[in-house]
Every structure is written in C-alpha cells, then in structure tokens.
C-alpha cells in the first residue's frame, strides 16, 4: 500500500495561498502575489501528476490496482470526522482516490496552473491584483477539495465554496453594475439548484443511513435493508430513490448550466477572461457531470428513470445551446453557450451508459470528453483573452483579419476550433466519437440530436474563427487606429503565450491517450474501437458546418445579414435566447417580489404589528376610561363607597334568602 498522505496537500497548498493573499495581498504581498499564487498551484499540479503516476502507474504494478485483479479500486487516503450528527451519520473530511478523482485533480490543477500563469500577464497592473490571486487560490482549493470528497456532504461543502469563489470572481470588477448583477444571478440560480441537491442529500442520507459515498453506493445498489426502505417508500408515484437522485441531479444541472438552469452562465462572462477559462469552461461547470459520475452506480443499477432524466436534459441542453450559440456576437457568450452544449454531451453520454464492462462506454466517453474539453475550451477562452486584450472589445463585429497581428493566437485558436468540431486527429474527435457511439448503441433519438449538434458546433465555432481572424481588414484598422492600445499591448507577453502553447499541444495530443484503460465505470479497463465507417457521418457534417461558416463569414459580405432577415422571427427568437431570461425576470420580479415579498412586509407592518399596537392602544383606552375614577373629590369617593355598600347589601340579602 503506497503512502497517499501527501494528497491532502494538493488542496491545502492553494488554501494557504488564499489565506496569505487574503490577509496580506492588498499591501505586504502585493508585489509578488501573482508569483506566490502561481508557485503554490504549480506545487499542487506537480503533486497531482505524481499522484496520477502513482495511482495509474504502469499496468499491474500501479498502486490503484489491487493484487490479483486488473481493476482500479477506490482508495480512502484520509478521513476524520468533521461534524457528527448521530452514529453512522457524520460529515467526514476525507480524500477519496479513484480513477475519476485522480483524473480530475490533474485536470483542475493543470488548467488552474495555466490560468494562473496567463493572468500574470493579463491582469498585470490591476489595482486588486493580490485579491484576484487570493480568489483564484480559493477557487482552486475548493475545486480540488470537491473532486477529492469521499463524503456527499463534504462534496456539498466544497460545492458551495466553488459557487462562492465563482461569485467573487464574476463580480471582480465590482464597480461595473453588469458584473455585480451577473455575479448575483450566478449565485442565486445555482443556490436554487443547490436547494434540490440539499434535499436530495437529506433523502438519500436518511434512507441510506450514511453520508459516506462508498457505503451509500454499496447500500443503494445491493438489496440491503436501506435499499428496500428507500425503494418501497414513494411519493407522487415515484420511489424516493428516484426523487433523491433527481434532486441531486438538479443541483448538478444548476452548476453545469443545464437547461433550464443555464441562464447564469452567459452572464458570468462578465468576469475576467482567465476566470471564465478556469471556472466557467474547464472545471467548475463540469462539477455536475462529476457528481452524476460519482453516484453513477446508483443511477445506473438502481434507478433507470433518474438516469433517463439525465440523458434527455443533457441532450436537449446540448442542442438548444448550440442553436443559441449560432446567433451570438459576443465571443465570450458564444463560448459560454458552446460550453453548455459540450457539457450537455457529457451529461447524455452518462445518461445512455450502463454500468460495467463494454456497456460502460458512455461513462468512459463522458469522462474522456470532460478531459479533452477542459483543455481545448480553456485554450479557446485564453485565446479570446488575448484577443480582447488587443482589441478591447468582446464583439465579433469589431474584429476581423487578426491573423496577421496575432499569428500564434491564430494557430492555437484554429487547433482548438478543430478539436471542438471533432475533426481528426484533434482531441475532441476521439471523445466525441465515443459519445456518439455510446448513444447509437442505446438511444437513436439522442444519437440524432448529438450528430446534428456536432454539425452546429463546427458551424458556430468557425463562424467565430472566421469573424475574428479573416473577414477583411476591418479589425486591423480599428486596432491600428487606437494608438494607445497598440503601444500598451504591442506584443503579447510570454506569460500569456506559454499557456496557449501548452494547451494547444494538449488539444493536439490528448486524444491519443488510451483513456479507456484508465477510467471506466467499474475501474476495469476496456478496449474501445470505433469503426471507421461510423466516423464518416459526424466528420462530414462537421466539415459541412465549417464550409457554411467559411462561405458566410470568410470574407466581408452581407450574406449573414441576408440570411438573418430571411428567417426573421426565428432569428430574433434565437438571438434573444428564447426569451428565457425574460421569463425568469417575470417570475422573480413580478411574482416573488410583488406578490409574495411586498405583501409579507406589508402584513408584518400593518396587521401583525398593528395588532400589537392595537393591543397597546386598547390598554391605554381602558386606562383613560377608568382613570377618572381617582378624581380626588371627596363626594365622588363617598358615592362609590355607598354604592358599593348598597350593592353588597343587596348581594348578601339575595344569598341569605336562598
């Protein structure tokens, strides 16, 4: 048994960074706060790589494989009780190593490292530079803690913490009202989803009688007493297990921006671009996928209806997000919708998968896509960061012809676009093929959606690519005509170029990793072989999408405008993203505020408190009424006295007579 005690340092190093920079980042550590944060995450990344090497190692000698078997087993590297509720029910702080958590710590720490390095150049000169790195460190800590959680409530704790760091970073430019509104929206929408997660945990833990993932999964996948009690209890026709899992999935859907809880993600692009790359593209938004994968045995073995929900929500989100991406003109919003669409792929891949063996292809493909997507989507966002840094605008219409000014960014962006479009031999091709194959094997409708969406993906990504780097000299002139910008950012610093190159290499080569030998639903390595004939349809569709984009946006023309006006109403509907935001605004403003909040406040002031005040006035009125009795006049008192005597006399006579 290898020693895994050092794993705890992987999240703790960024935490140390947060504490140090949070306390001293404003003044004392200001100068080298970037270096400090980057150094700590570098150490964490190296430790993660070492952990992966130790866990997966080489074949049968690997630490993750127990003697005599070939499967990777979960290892609980650390555990202590953090808060205990009753015997058996406690929140433990633990470190769980299994194929997906090891894969995730590598992804999170590497992307985070790239973003830390990139920000050294991108955020240079910011007033709150130290605070920025403090928040980045807080995020890295929380995300690493999340993926290593071995207890469902521990995961929830880190889940909330990533939400908070995302909130802080979206609102980093706190004096911009739009950024403040976006951060608020992201927090509240995900909080709403977390309510589902919390109640889901309450249900699962009450019947499972544990919060520990391993025990919980074991009890809910075997015919244990706990399993029988949760499946025999039902509410509105569904077993409580279905309810619990679906509610947990709602939490995941909120974090992963699945329809209809996706509304916060496009707005979240108000944050600094490196933050979008890290949080809103590569790591935090896939937490929902990770959560479903973590509980996958329960979903798959015990509760097909909940898994069906995962599949259909994923597929629908993939499609609708791709459609919305086609009409957006802000490059970061295009990328945001694209992220949502790709996460939809990961979700439905899980949804169509089975547990164990070859049937677990979808699970493996989902994790593989998560892995490759983290690389190329982070790359796309960092490219967008370089472009925005240069052009000082997010609008694609303000750009064009940038390929000569930013040759390196151009190449990197092209690689990333090819990867996301699923063109061989780039990384996205491999993972997407496997997802489509898994869908084909189990659900033809979802396969059709996935196939069509992959064509759309290629179209909108190359629409972005051609608008930025080709399409006439429009942007060149604008950039050149802005002398201040040209001088200040004449060349992109190394700190910004280096991450681009590293991630581009990843997008080129990551597809060649034999992923199915490492990460599978049951830990048992499988061999995947996608038939060549199967790849023809998606690749052809992707090429068609690229061709269409090139025809529309390759050169300056009014073709896009003519096309848009030809389908006027539909275009406007999509351009306004189906008015989902407006529907939400109606529900919150009109219903929650005006119909619930306002009456509650009014009732409290006027009825409940009015009653109290009324009671006081009543008392005062009574006392005013009777205070005249003590008038101090002798005659009055004599009158009361004799009236009293007379009354008593009558009373006594009455009693005596009876």
């Amino acid at each position: 048994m290898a020693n895994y005690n050092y794993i705890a340092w992987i999240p703790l190093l960024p935490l140390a960074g947060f504490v140090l920079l949070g306390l001293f980042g404003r003044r004392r550590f200001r100068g080298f706060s970037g270096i400090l944060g980057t150094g700590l995450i570098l150490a964490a990344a190296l430790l993660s790589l070492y952990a992966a090497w130790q866990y997966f190692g080489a074949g049968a000698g690997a630490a993750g494989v127990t003697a005599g078997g070939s499967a990777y087993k979960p290892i609980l590297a650390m555990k202590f009780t953090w808060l205990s509720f009753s015997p058996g029910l406690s929140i433990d702080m633990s470190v769980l190593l299994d194929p997906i958590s090891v894969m995730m710590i590598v992804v999170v720490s590497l992307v985070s490292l790239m973003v830390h390095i990139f920000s050294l150049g991108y955020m240079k000169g910011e007033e709150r530079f130290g605070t920025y790195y403090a928040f980045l460190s807080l995020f890295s800590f929380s995300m690493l803690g999340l993926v290593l959680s071995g207890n469902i409530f521990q995961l929830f704790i880190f889940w909330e913490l990533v939400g908070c760091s995302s909130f802080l970073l979206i609102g980093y430019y706190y004096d911009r009202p739009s950024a403040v509104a976006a951060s608020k929206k992201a927090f509240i929408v995900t909080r709403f989803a977390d309510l589902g997660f919390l109640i889901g945990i309450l249900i699962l833990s009450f019947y499972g009688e544990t919060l520990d993932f391993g025990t919980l999964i074991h009890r809910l996948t075997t015919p244990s007493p706990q399993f029988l009690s949760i499946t025999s209890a039902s509410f509105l026709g569904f077993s409580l297990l279905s309810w619990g899992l679906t509610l947990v999935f709602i939490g995941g859907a909120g974090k992963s921006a699945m329809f209809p809880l996706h509304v916060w993600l496009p707005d979240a692009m108000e944050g600094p671009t490196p933050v979008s790359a890290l949080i809103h593209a590569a790591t935090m938004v896939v937490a929902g996928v990770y959560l479903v994968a973590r509980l996958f045995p329960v979903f798959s073995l015990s509760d097909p209806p909940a898994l069906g929900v995962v599949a259909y929500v994923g597929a629908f989100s993939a499609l609708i997000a791709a459609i919305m991406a086609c009409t957006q003109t802000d490059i970061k919003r295009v990328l945001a919708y694209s992220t949502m669409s790709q996460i939809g792929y990961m979700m439905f891949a899980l949804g169509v998968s089975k547990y164990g063996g070859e049937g677990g292809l979808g699970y493996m493909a989902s994790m593989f896509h998560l892995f490759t997507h983290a690389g190329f989507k982070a790359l796309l966002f960092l490219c967008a960061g370089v472009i925005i840094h240069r052009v000082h605008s997010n609008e694609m219409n303000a750009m064009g012809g940038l390929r000569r000014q930013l040759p390196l960014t151009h190449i990197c962006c092209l690689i990333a676009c090819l990867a996301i479009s699923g063109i061989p031999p780039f990384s996205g091709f491999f993972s997407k093929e496997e997802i489509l194959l898994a869908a084909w094997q189990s659900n033809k409708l979802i396969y059709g959606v996935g196939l069509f969406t992959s064509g759309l993906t290629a179209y909108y990504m190359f629409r972005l690519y051609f608008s930025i780097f080709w399409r006439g000299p429009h942007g060149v002139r604008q950039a050149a005509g802005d002398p201040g910008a040209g001088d200040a950012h004449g060349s992109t610093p190394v700190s910004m170029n280096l991450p681009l190159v590293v991630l581009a290499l990843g997008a080129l080569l990551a597809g060649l990793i034999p992923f199915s030998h490492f990460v599978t639903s049951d830990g048992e390595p499988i061999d995947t072989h996608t038939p060549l004939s199967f790849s023809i349809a998606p690749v052809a569709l992707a090429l068609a999408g690229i061709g269409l984009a090139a025809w529309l946006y390759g050169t300056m023309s009014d073709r896009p405008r003519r096309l848009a006006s030809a389908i006027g109403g539909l275009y406007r509907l999509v351009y306004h993203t189906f008015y989902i935001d407006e529907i939400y605004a109606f529900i919150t403003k009109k219903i929650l505020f005006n119909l619930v909040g306002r009456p509650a406040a009014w009732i409290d002031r006027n009825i409940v408190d009015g009653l109290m005040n009324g009671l006081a006035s009543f008392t005062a009125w009574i006392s005013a009424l009777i205070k005249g009795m003590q008038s101090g006049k002798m005659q009055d008192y004599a009158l009361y006295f004799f009236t009293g005597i007379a009354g008593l006399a009558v009373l006594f006579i009455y009693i005596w007579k009876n």
Partner: protein
Amino acid sequence: MNLSLFIIIPLVTAVAVMCCRGLRQARWISLAGSLGQLLLSFVLLFRFGQERAAGNSSRMLFEYRHSWFAAWHIDYHIGVDGISVAMILLTAVIVLAGVLVSWNKGPWSKEFFSLLLILALGAYGFFLSLDLFTMFFFLELSVIPKYLLIGIWGSGRKEYSAMKLALMLMSGSALVFIGLLGLYYGSGHSFDILQLAQVPISAGVQRTFFPCLFIGFGIFTALFPLHTWVPDGHSSAPTAASMFLAGISMKLGAYGCLRVATYLMPDAAREYAPIIIVLATIAIVYGAFATMMQKDLKYINAYSSVSHCGFILLGIGMLTRAAINGAVLQMISHGLMTALFFASIGMIYDRAHTRMVDRLGGLLKVMPFISTIFVIAGLCSLGLPGLSSFVAEITVFIGSWQHPGTMYRLATILACASIVITAVYILRASAQTVMGPVKDPQFSVLTDAAWYERLASILLVAGIVVIGVAPFWLNDLLKPGIDAFMVHAGQTGLLK
C-alpha cells in the same frame, strides 16, 4: 472554579465606570473589564475541558449553592454544562466587541458603558443559573437597561421603539413568571432545575404552563407573531445595544425555551411540537420574504434575525438529537454573525450617516475593510460553508429530516428553501451597498475602520471562522449536555 466571578467582574466594572470621569476613563475601564471577562471565560472553557477529561461526568460542573430566600426555597444556585459554557463564551465575545465599537460613544459615556456591562451581568447570571427564580431575576436585569439604552442613545423613533421593546419583553417575562409559579406549585415547591428534572410533573401542569413558559421565552426569540419588537427595537438601538440585543438577548429566550420549558416539561413539548414547528416555519419563510423588501440595513438584519431565530425554534420543536444540537449551534452562530452584521452596519452609518441601501453604493472602494466585514457577515448569513451558520443550519436540517411525518418534512423543505431567499436579500443588500460605482461623491472622503473597530470585527470574524472550519470542538463541548437532555426526554416517554 468560582463561577460567581462572572457576576462580580461586570458588577465591579460597572461601578468603577460610574465612579470614573469622562469618556476616556470609562472606555478603558470597560475594555479592561470585558477583556477580563473574555479571559475568564476562556479559563472556564479550559477548566471545564480538564474536568470532563478527568472523568467528571456530573450533570453540572462547578456548582455553587447558597440559600437566598429559604421560605420560598429560592437558592442562589449556579453551575455550568457545555451549553452554558458556550453561551458564556458568546456573551464575553459580544460584550468585548460591543465595548470596542462604542469607543467614541457620547454623551453620557459613563452611563452608557455601565448599562452595557449590567446587561452583560444579566446575561451571565441567566446562563449560569440553575434556580428558576434566580434565572428570572437575571432575565429581568437584562431587560430594563435596554429600555434606557434605546431611549437615550437610540436613533429614529427611539422612544416608541424603546417602549415597544420594553412592553413586549416585559409581557414575555410576566408569562415566564406565571410559568415558574406553575412549576413551583405543580412540583412540590421547588425552583431548582435539577430537582425539578427529578420529579414527575403532572400532565395537567405541563399542558397549562408549558405554553406560558415557551411563549414567554419565545417573545425574546422572535416567536411569530410576537416578533414585532425585533425590527423596531434593533433599528432604533445604538450599535452596541443592537449587537447585544440580537446577539445575546434573543438567545436568552432560546436558552430558556430549551433549558426550562422543553427540558422540564418534555411531554407538553411533544404535544405542542406541531404548533411550535408551524410558527417557526412561518417565522423562517415569512421573515425571509419580509426581509427581501426592506430598504434600511438595520431592518434587513432585524428581519433576517427573525428568520434565522426561526431555525432555533424549529430545531427545538423537532426534538430530535441532531435538531436540538443544531438549535444550540444556531444560537451561538447567529449571535456572532448578527453582532458582526450590526457592527459593520453601525460603522457604515457612523460614516455615511445613512443606512438606506438605495443611497449607499460602492463602499468597497472607499472603505474596503468595513465592506469586507459586511460581506463576510452576509456570506455567513446565507450559510456559506467555512462560516458558522452553515454548520448550524445543516445540523438543524439533518435533525429535522429525522422526524418522519409529512408535515415535519414539509416544514424542513420550507426551511431549506429559505436559504435561497436569504441569498437573494443578502446579495441584493451587498450588491447595492458595497459594490457598484460610488454613488455619492461625498462618500469618497470617508475613512476606513479605526483600530478599535478592526479589533471588534476581527474578534467576531475569528469566532465565526473557527466554528465554521472546525465545528467538532464546539460539538464535543455541547455533546454531554445535549445527551443528558435527550436522556431526560427519553425517560419521560418523549422519544424512542
């Protein structure tokens, strides 16, 4: 350990403050006194831990009894278990922070500080008492100074608020007193909590006097619909008094509900539990919605206190071990959090001379420290992990969920849903107040917190973070007390 020190030190300090001259002397003496109290409470914590570690498992430690009024069996009887130790620590922290934020309080600083210290004395005595009459005496002692603090040093409609608060709390105490007499005559003439716990109290007595005690103490804890003193009282009170009021006073009631009403009359508690739960749930949800519409920062925090104290009553009403544990955690957590909130609001008000959210804005730029404190208090209020409220709230949630039955489940779900509404109002308030562009050009000359304000904030934040990050030590401290509570409840046929 001599527990009477907790009563002597504030008394001596208060007298010394009255005898000194001017603000400078008054504040330094108060600081020394409250620092002494804090140190003493740490000593208590340490000694308590030592005793428990040494295997002393008696119900109460450091007991002291002295006959006070023998004919009525009234004793000065004090002693502590883990719950009271935690409450005493809370009181000491809040009093010290309160003295620090009132550093420049005038006019009549001497009177102000000594009244504050007398409030502290009342709270310490209340948490220490094991005799119901002594307890009642200290409860009263902590009501009357509030009337003066609000009426003299308050703001806004201070006379109205002071009167309202005093009248409502006094009627609460009157109900408590009726309940005490009921217990006294119903149990064979005793005011002693430990003795009362030994004798069976007849169902009739329980049924009649439990509501008196629970409602009486409940008024202090903002039991719906008797919570209306909270918004007015808090918003008119000076900062330190608000901190004390929300941080400790509301906990006096909660502690009484738990230690006296529910502990001594568990059968009645079970019988009335559905009503308590319904009222607590209304307070939680309705309080949260009412908060959403408030525009004055102090009203926001006052209404949110109604909502948050609902969790305490919900936990007590649920009567499962984890729920009671959560209720006690919430008492401490809410005390610290709300004190921090009021402290930061007070600092903002002292500088900007307004508390209306629509007139504030962009404070993070001009006073980063105060704004950060404000945001931390807000994040604690909305239950962010790593801060104390999260620990308390999830313990209540998990405990409440243990209670099967559709109504209980529904109440739990509604209580859980309030965390979303909390997020809405907290984020709205902080977005409008500290974020955004600087609204008023006059704000740009405002200064950030002074050393005493920083010290007060750091003290409270430290408490919140320590509980939030390492709740296990507090849980271990509370465990025997809550276990004993549950055992007693079980013996009288309350819970399986």
